[in-house]
C-alpha cells in the first residue's frame, strides 16, 4: 500500500540507488552508440535536458504531453508534414527554448547520424526520411518528410529521439560565442551545416569525455561535469552539482525551471552500488530513500504478479512498489547457422521445430518457481504490461506448455523422438511429414546454447527450459559466459563456415525506447540492425511497413509474429520491487521507462 497523508515538507535530500554497474557515464544528450542507455538518458540526462516528447503516463507508455517541451504534433492529411508548437520552457541562462533549438538537434542528428546511438539505417526513419526542418516561428517547428508515415509510429519512435539543444552549445571551443559553431542556425541537410555540426559534436562529445576522432585519448572529463558551464545550461528541473567516476551524483533544483512541477527537494542524490547485496544492506541500514528489493530477498511468492505480497520485516520504514518495464524477453535463434554440420539453421527455419521449442517453455512454472510469481506470460513481441497494445490473440499462449504436443510435432515431421536422449531425423525431405529441406536423414536434433550467467533467476529459468527441451529429445549443449560475450556472439551473419552460433540467451530483454511503439522494424525486418538471428519473412516485412508507413493496425503484425516465432519468447520478469521510505511521497507511479522525476518527490512529517 502506498502511504498517504502527512504534512509536505520543503527541502530535504532524497537518495536513490543506481543498479549495480549502471552508473551514468555521459552527460551530452546526443548519445553516441555505446552511451545510449537508460542510466544515461532516463536516469540522468532527462533530469537536466528535457526531451521534445516525454513518454510514460502513470503506469502506461503513452505520450505525456504535460511533461513534454512540445505540444501535440499536428500531421498533415498526407502524413508528410508535421507541425509542432512548443510549450514555454526556458534555459537556465535565460534564453527561451525555441523551435530553432529543435532544428539544432536535427542538424546535429543529420550530420552525425552514424555515431548517434539510436540511429537505425535502412528503415527510412528519422533523420533519413526528413527532407527539411525549419523553425517557422520561435515557437513552431515544421518537419517535412520524404514520404507518408503512420503518425503514431512517427511520434512514438522518431520524434521520441529529439531533445532541444541550447544555442549556447553551438560552439567549437571553450568560451566560444553561442551560435558561432554554425550548426544551430544552419539550413538542414546542407553540406556546410553538416560540416559545422560535425565540429560542434566533436567538441561537445570531447567535453563530455568521448573524443570521436581519437577514442584512445586519455581524458578525465568527469571531474568537470558539474562545473563545466556548457552542461550547466539546462531546461529541466535539475542541474548537476556533483559527479564522479564511481557514479555518485548530486543534483539541485534549477531555479529557472519553467516546467509544470517545480522540485520540492533541496537535493537529489544518486548512489552507485557494486552489487545487489550491497544495495540491500543499505536499504536494511536505512541509508536510502528509494532503493530496491532484490527478488532473491523477497520473502513471499505472490499469486498476483501485479501485487507485492511480502516485505522483509526489518524494512518497516519502507513500502514496496513494483513495475514492469516496457520490454519483452526473448532469445534469438540463428536462421543462418552452419552449426550441426551445416543444418542447424535449416532446422531452425522450420516453423514446426520453433513451435516445438516454444511449446516446451513452461512459462507458468518459471514465473511461479523462479520469479516467485513476479512475472507475466509473454507470447509475442509486445510487452504484456500494461496490455496497451496487446491483441486478444497475444493474451493467450498459442503454444502452451505441452511436452506431448511438442513430441507429436517432431515425430509428425520425420523425427524419431528419444525423450532424455537426442532425436534423429529419419525421414529426410521437404514434403509433409518430413524433416525439412536440407536436413539429411540421421541428423541429430542437437543445438549449442550459450547463455549469460550472473543473474540467478535467469540461470534458473534457462535450466528449466533446457530440462524441458531435453524431455522431448531436443538436446542442448549449454555453455555459459558473460552478458557481453553472449550478446557479442549473437551477431547477424550470412550462411557460411564462420556463421556457427545457434542459440544465444543473454538474459536480457528488448526495451522499447526510444522505439516506444512496438512495431519491431529494428528487430524482425529483413536485415534489421538488431535482427541478430537473420529472420527473414516477406509477410513480416510487409506488416512492419504497414504499421510504420500507413495506418495499418499493430494487431496484424502482432498476431502474425505470435505464431511465427522469429525468436523464442520468454516470460517477463518484474523490472523492480522498489523500496520507498514511508515518509517520501510522489515516487509512484513509477515511469515504465525508468525515467526519474524527483521533482515530484517530497518528504512529509
Amino acid at each position, binding site marked *: 500500500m502506498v502511504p498517504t497523508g502527512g504534512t509536505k515538507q520543503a527541502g530535504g535530500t532524497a537518495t536513490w540507488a543506481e543498479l549495480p554497474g549502471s552508473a551514468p557515464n555521459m552527460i551530452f544528450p546526443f548519445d553516441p552508440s555505446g552511451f*545510449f542507455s537508460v542510466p544515461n538518458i532516463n536516469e540522468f540526462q532527462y533530469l537536466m535536458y528535457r526531451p521534445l516528447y516525454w513518454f510514460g503516463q502513470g503506469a502506461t507508455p503513452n505520450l505525456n504531453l504535460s511533461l513534454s517541451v512540445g505540444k501535440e504534433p499536428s500531421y498533415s492529411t498526407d502524413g508528410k508534414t508535421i507541425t509542432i508548437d512548443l510549450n514555454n520552457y526556458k534555459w537556465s541562462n535565460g534564453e527561451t527554448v525555441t523551435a530553432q533549438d529543435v532544428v539544432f538537434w536535427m542538424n546535429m542528428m543529420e550530420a552525425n547520424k552514424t555515431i548517434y546511438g539510436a540511429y537505425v539505417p535502412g528503415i527510412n526513419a528519422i533523420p533519413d526520411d526528413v527532407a527539411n526542418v525549419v523553425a517557422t516561428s520561435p515557437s513552431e517547428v515544421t518537419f517535412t518528410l520524404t514520404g507518408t508515415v503512420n503518425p503514431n509510429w512517427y511520434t512514438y519512435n522518431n520524434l521520441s529521439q529529439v531533445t532541444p539543444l541550447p544555442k549556447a552549445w553551438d560552439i567549437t571551443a571553450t568560451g566560444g560565442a553561442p551560435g558561432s559553431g554554425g550548426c544551430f542556425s544552419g539550413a538542414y541537410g546542407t553540406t556546410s551545416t553538416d560540416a559545422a555540426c560535425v565540429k560542434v559534436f566533436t567538441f561537445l562529445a570531447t567535453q563530455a569525455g568521448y573524443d570521436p576522432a581519437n*577514442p584512445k585519448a586519455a*581524458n578525465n572529463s568527469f571531474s568537470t561535469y558539474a562545473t563545466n558551464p556548457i552542461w550547466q545550461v539546462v531546461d529541466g528541473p535539475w542541474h548537476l552539482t556533483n559527479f564522479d567516476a564511481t557514479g555518485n551524483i548530486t543534483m539541485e533544483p534549477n531555479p529557472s525551471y519553467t516546467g509544470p512541477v517545480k522540485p520540492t527537494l533541496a537535493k537529489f542524490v544518486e548512489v552507485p552500488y557494486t552489487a545487489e547485496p550491497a544495495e540491500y544492506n543499505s536499504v536494511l541500514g536505512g541509508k536510502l530513500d528509494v532503493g530496491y528489493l532484490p527478488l532473491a530477498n523477497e520473502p513471499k511468492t505472490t499469486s498476483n504478479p501485479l501485487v507485492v505480497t511480502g516485505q522483509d520485516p526489518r524494512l518497516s520504514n519502507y513500502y514496496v512498489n513494483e513495475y514492469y518495464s516496457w520490454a519483452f524477453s526473448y532469445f534469438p535463434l540463428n536462421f543462418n547457422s552452419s552449426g550441426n554440420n551445416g543444418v542447424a539453421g535449416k532446422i531452425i527455419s522450420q516453423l514446426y521445430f520453433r513451435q516445438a521449442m516454444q511449446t516446451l517453455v513452461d512459462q507458468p512454472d518459471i514465473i511461479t518457481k523462479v520469479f516467485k510469481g513476479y512475472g507475466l506470460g509473454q507470447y509475442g513481441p509486445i510487452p504484456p504490461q500494461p496490455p496497451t497494445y496487446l491483441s486478444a490473440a497475444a493474451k493467450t499462449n498459442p503454444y502452451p506448455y505441452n511436452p506431448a504436443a511438442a513430441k507429436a510435432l517432431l515425430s509428425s515431421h520425420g523425427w524419431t523422438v528419444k525423450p532424455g536422449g537426442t532425436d534423429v531425423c529419419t525421414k529426410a525431405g521437404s514434403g509433409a511429414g518430413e524433416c525439412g529441406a536440407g536436413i539429411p536423414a540421421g541428423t541429430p536434433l542437437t543445438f549449442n546454447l550459450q547463455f549469460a550467467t550472473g543473474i540467478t533467476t535467469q540461470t534458473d529459468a534457462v535450466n528449466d527450459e533446457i530440462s524441458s527441451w531435453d524431455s522431448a529429445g531436443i538436446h542442448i549443449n549449454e555453455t555459459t559466459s*558473460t552478458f*557481453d560475450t553472449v550478446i557479442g556472439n549473437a551477431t547477424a551473419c550470412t550462411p557460411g563456415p564462420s556463421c556457427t552460433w545457434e542459440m544465444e540467451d543473454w538474459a536480457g530483454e528488448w526495451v522499447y525506447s526510444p522505439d516506444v511503439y512496438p512495431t519491431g522494424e529494428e528487430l524482425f525486418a529483413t536485415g534489421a*540492425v538488431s535482427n541478430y538471428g537473420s529472420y527473414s519473412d516477406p509477410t513480416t516485412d510487409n506488416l512492419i511497413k504497414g504499421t510504420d508507413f500507413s495506418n495499418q493496425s499493430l494487431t496484424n503484425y502482432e498476431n502474425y509474429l505470435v505464431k511465427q516465432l522469429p525468436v523464442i519468447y520468454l516470460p517477463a520478469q518484474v523490472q523492480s520491487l522498489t523500496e520507498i521510505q514511508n515518509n517520501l511521497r510522489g515516487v509512484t507511479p513509477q515511469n515504465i521507462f525508468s525515467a526519474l522525476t524527483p521533482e515530484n518527490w517530497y518528504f512529509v512529517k
Partner: protein
Amino acid sequence: MIGFTIRRIIQAFVVIIAVMLLVFLLAHVIPGGAARAALGPRATRLQIAQFNRLNNYDRPIIVQFWLYIEGLIWHHNLGYSYHYNQGVTAVIQERLPKTLVLVGISTILALVVAVPLGILQVVRRNKPVDYALTAGSFIFYAMPSFLLGTLLILYLAVDVHLFSVEAPQGQTVGSILADPRGLVLPEVTLAAITIASFSRYMRSSMMEAMTEDYVRTARAKGANTTRVLFFHALRNAIIPIVTLLGLSIPAIVSGAVITETVFNFPGMGLLTYQAATNTDVPMLLGTAFVATVATVIGSLAADIIYAVVDPRVRYAKR
C-alpha cells in the same frame, strides 16, 4: 647486492612485457568482440567497423600490441575505456588510492596482530590459549570473506547500528580516513582472514626457531625468556612473514574484489573483475599492468628485504 638488484630489475621488465603480451592475446581471443561490448546491442555494422578501425582492432594483433606498448612507454597512456567513458589511467588513479587504503591498512593491522598472536601461541604452546587461538585461526581462515563481511554488516551495522553498512564513499584518501565508522567492518573482514593466515605461519616459524641451537645457547648464557623470544628467535622467525608480505603487495594493489563488493567500495579488485566481465579490453590491460608491476615489485622487495633481515643470505655474483 647491487648486481643482484640490477639483474632482478631487468628480469622484471621482461616479465612485465611477457605478462602484458599474454593478457593482450587472451583479451583479444574473448569471443564476442570488444566492439559489441562497448557499443551495445543496437550498434550497426558501420558503427562496429568504425569502432574497430579507430581502436586498431582491425589490424594484426602484434601491431596492436606494439601500438599499445608504444603508447604506454612514450605517452604513459593506458588507453580509453568506453565502459567508463574515461581514460584508463584516470579511472585507475581514482580507484588505486582507495584500494591501497583499504587493503594496506588491513595488512598492517594483520601484521600487528598476527605476530604477537603467533608468539603468544608459542609461549603458551599446547595450553588452552593456544588451542583457542588455533581454533579461531582455522575458523577465520576457512571462512569466505563474503560470509564474514555480511555477518558483520547484519549484526554490527543493521541490528546494533554500531558501524556503517558500507565502506566510506569518499573519493579521496582523506575523506575515506575521515570516516572510521565506515572503515572498521571492511578492515576487520580483510584483516581477520589475513591474521588467521599470518599467525599460523608465525607460530610454526617461531616454534622452529625455538628449537635451534642458537636459542639453546642463548638460554645457556642466561638470557631470559623475553630476550630469547624477541632478540634471538623473532628475527629468524619473521623471515617467512617478510616473504608473505612481499607477496601481499600485489593483493594490496589489485584489491579485494569480494570485500569491495560486499561493502560497496569500488576499488581495483572490482575494477578488474568488471573489466573482464564487460570485455573492457583497455581497462583489463590497464589493471593487469598495475597488478603485474606490483607483483614484480613485491617479489623483488621480498628478496631484498630477505637478504637484509637474514645476514646468512647473500646474493653474491656467481
